[in-house]
């Protein structure tokens, strides 16, 4: 966690404009977009044969129990544990405490590698009845609600960018891309959403 006296600046600080845009159908936006900022994003990668111990320890340290099930995400109201690969997760919450230190206090260096990714991601939340259609334009994943359901999280190529897509409910997705792709990503999303009409809301 950075010095609390230094205000974190979003990757989208120059281009993020709230309001309603695009082809609004009867004045209503089909997609709502908001940036999730500032987040604490910690990657935990368990060493060989440490997976079970790391899962149990994260549960005690951070209050969320990651799942070893591929392409899954466990969420409570405040915090999520998203599967990235075998024995590798992203632990995400709104930045209120030094999550890296909280996890690192219990998950020791001989159990897992813990990396603070908070400053290296740009995260957008897409919601609304057309959110799946926006994503369909950029990925080869099956976006049918029966195949990509709430609690699923998939890493894929989205508009030619490596992206992690976390389905929160039928119409709501959190999408993580590398910070340096943030502006391109935001622009391609608003272009894809323009035909449905979109609202850009305040950061959450």
């Amino acid at each position, binding site marked *: 966690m950075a010095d609390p006296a230094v205000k974190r600046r979003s990757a989208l600080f120059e281009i993020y404009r709230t309001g309603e845009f695009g082809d609004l159908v009867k004045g209503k936006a089909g997609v709502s977009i908001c940036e999730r900022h500032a987040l604490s994003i910690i990657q935990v990668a368990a060493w060989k044969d440490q997976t079970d111990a790391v899962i149990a320890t994260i549960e005690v340290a951070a209050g969320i129990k990651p799942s070893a099930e*591929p*392409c899954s995400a466990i969420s409570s109201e405040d915090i999520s544990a998203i599967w*990235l*690969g*075998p024995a*590798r997760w992203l632990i995400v919450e709104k930045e209120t405490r030094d999550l890296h230190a909280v996890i690192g206090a219990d998950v020791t260096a001989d159990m897992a590698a813990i990396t603070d990714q908070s400053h290296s991601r740009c995260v957008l939340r897409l919601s609304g009845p057309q959110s799946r259609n926006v994503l369909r334009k950029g990925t080869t994943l099956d976006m049918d609600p029966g195949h990509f359901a709430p609690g699923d999280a*998939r*890493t894929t190529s989205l508009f030619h960018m*490596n992206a992690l897509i976390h389905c929160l409910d039928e119409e709501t997705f959190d999408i993580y891309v590398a910070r340096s792709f943030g502006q391109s990503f935001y622009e391609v999303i608003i272009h894809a959403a323009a035909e449905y009409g979109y609202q850009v809301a305040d950061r959450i």
Partner: protein
Amino acid sequence: MIRINCPWCGERNMVEFTYGGDANNVYPGLSEETSEKQYFEYTYLRDNPCGPHLEYWHHVNGCRQWIKVKRDTLTHEVIATVPADKPVGEKE
């Protein structure tokens, strides 16, 4: 378009993967008995089979795992996929 069944993530489009080379190619090792000829063959020589072929792929836009794929080079049929450290069939 080739669809590859990642052992972790399930069936995904090949755009998520990068090709990682011939999985039949065995590193000759660094012992003094290893000849220059063996290194030359390891470095440069590959078969160009028509039919089932064993190859490495990296799920780079996914779970980032290396996998072994048995693929028919003629039809592009993906016959089997396993984690890179596991054998594909009894033969290996």
